[in-house]
């Protein structure tokens, strides 16, 4: 719960969090080393100075760190913890669903654990989706189209094997498909982060919600165009939001574009923990106003009502969270973690 300076309680769903192991012991090769270093550079590049972590902690943090940063020191009521396997880079995977489910087990009310699959695995991917549903009752999955798999350096949502997987998701009621479409990190000739495949997949799977993480940045215009056409396409703010600290005017331009094109109902807060922690993000977001000239040009405002939607109400709708019931359940399930 985030309490505003005016004393109002705001329900917060953190749409994008991780519990990873990027430690040297788990790195399989140079790619694993470089991958976590790239994340660490995002962390050091965009965090306020007083929020910086030591590298060794960033590589592998504890379950207690996560509970504290998200729910005790942090304002999250519910965290959606995403799975990203990267088994070509990490011996035990980067953050597998087993690892995520384990951390969620202690406070089940607090977590939504999402799965992940790789359509390039063919039949095995379909079996795995069944396994995810039966074992973890997942409501959503995270798709990482730039993940390497053997000789393949990426895939598209419109690949025939991917369509078979989405048909199965639809049938099993796995409705929320989070797609990482963000900063270019692993492109070769094929740009695996191009957003246009979302357009087709969202048209063809109207029952599914397509949450484009990082709003497709640096392809914001393409993303806005698609999300305006497709009623079932949403934008996750992870990575865009930290700019609120280092480049507030730039963040104003991004959020103004999003509000103008896709509107306040389809934007979701996400910290991308542990790249960033949610407390400072939410505090700064609540205090933020779009610079006047930008707001006037686009004819949009970031009102308290809109902020509340972005911070929690929109995600609660997608994941069928009954907010009043959830507040009661959380009140009766206090934390006990190791003292610092």
């Amino acid at each position: 719960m985030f309490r505003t300076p005016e004393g109002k309680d705001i329900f917060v769903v953190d749409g994008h969090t991780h519990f990873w192991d990027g430690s040297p012991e788990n790195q399989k090769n140079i790619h694993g080393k470089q991958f976590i270093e790239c994340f660490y550079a995002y962390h050091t590049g965009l965090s306020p100075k007083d929020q910086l972590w030591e590298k060794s902690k960033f590589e592998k943090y504890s379950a207690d760190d996560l509970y504290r940063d998200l729910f005790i020191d942090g304002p999250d009521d519910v965290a959606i913890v995403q799975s990203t396997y990267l088994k070509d880079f990490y011996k035990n995977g980067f953050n597998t669903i087993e690892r995520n489910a384990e951390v969620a087990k202690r406070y089940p009310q607090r977590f939504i654990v999402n799965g992940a699959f790789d359509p390039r695995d063919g039949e095995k991917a379909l079996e795995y989706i069944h396994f995810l549903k039966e074992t973890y009752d997942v409501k959503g999955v995270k798709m990482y189209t730039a993940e390497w798999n053997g000789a393949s350096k990426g895939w598209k949502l419109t690949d025939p094997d991917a369509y078979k997987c989405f048909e199965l998701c639809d049938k099993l009621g796995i409705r929320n498909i989070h797609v990482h479409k963000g900063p270019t990190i692993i492109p070769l000739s094929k740009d695996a982060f191009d957003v246009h495949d979302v357009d087709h997949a969202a048209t063809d799977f109207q029952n599914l919600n397509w949450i484009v993480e990082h709003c497709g940045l640096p392809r914001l215009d393409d993303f806005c165009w698609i999300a305006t056409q497709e009623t079932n396409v949403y934008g996750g703010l992870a990575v865009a939001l930290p700019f609120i600290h280092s480049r507030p005017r730039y963040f104003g331009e991004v959020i103004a574009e999003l509000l103008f094109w896709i509107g306040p109902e389809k934007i979701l807060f996400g910290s991308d923990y542990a790249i960033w922690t949610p407390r400072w993000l939410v505090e700064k977001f609540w205090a933020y106003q779009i610079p006047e000239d930008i707001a006037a040009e686009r004819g949009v405002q970031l009102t308290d009502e809109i902020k509340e939607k972005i911070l929690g109400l929109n995600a609660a709708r997608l994941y069928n969270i009954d907010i009043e019931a959830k507040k009661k359940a959380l009140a009766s399930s206090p934390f006990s973690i190791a003292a610092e």
Partner: protein
Amino acid sequence: MATASVSGSRKNELWRCLGEVNDPELDEPITEMGFVERAEVTSDGSVDIDFRLPTYWCSPNFAFLMLDGVRKALDQLSWSPAYRVKLHDHMFAEEVNRGMEAGKTFGDIFAELAEDQDLGALRETFRMKAFKRRQEAVLRGLRQQGLTDREILEMDLPVYDVAGFEPGEAAKQKPRYRAALLERFPDRRAYDPVFVTWDGERIPPTALTGYLGELRGVRINMEFNGALCRGLKQTRYKELDVVDGEPTLVDFIMDRVPARAAPTA
């Protein structure tokens, strides 16, 4: 003395030439982005360049375009030196450096790595983005000065050239937009309007606000990359300085490193 001054002026010329090379994706000079880690003129006049991008993952195509730009800049040096360019810590650094040592052209090296990507088309896309980003900055600068949209859009090159700006983005981009305009439309006449679309169409005053919105979209994407690259690059450099037992990156960023004590002896 004469030798020292020759080597000093060669070094200046070298950095000036390198400063003309832009990161194609960001439209900012590679020297300002800090990608040129070292540029030396040795005693026999040959040139040594160490080049390092913000991440191991930076697109090989972009790396190619920059290295190709560096090569062209070095070919223009007045004393025609032999040169060595080394790419560091990139996923394809080994392939690139080995290829260069074997005397292959960048084109040959990257043709093997870039598969079917058409670099000419990529270059053209980046030229278009640079044109739009520079144009937007100048247009917004002129609006801020209180010029009407009609006055701005009727401006020709002689009028453009005498327009002055306070230091800032518009002032920085004014000569760069001029260069992009002349490169794009080499046959334009001096009294043609300065502000036209990438396709050479005139912009009606009533359409300027909408047009600026479109240009802003282009800039938002470029700035996102630029800001991330800067952050990543900064981090990477500081990490390189870490020595066992010495303060780490985080210590420096968090200002936890105490000022050096005065020598006691």
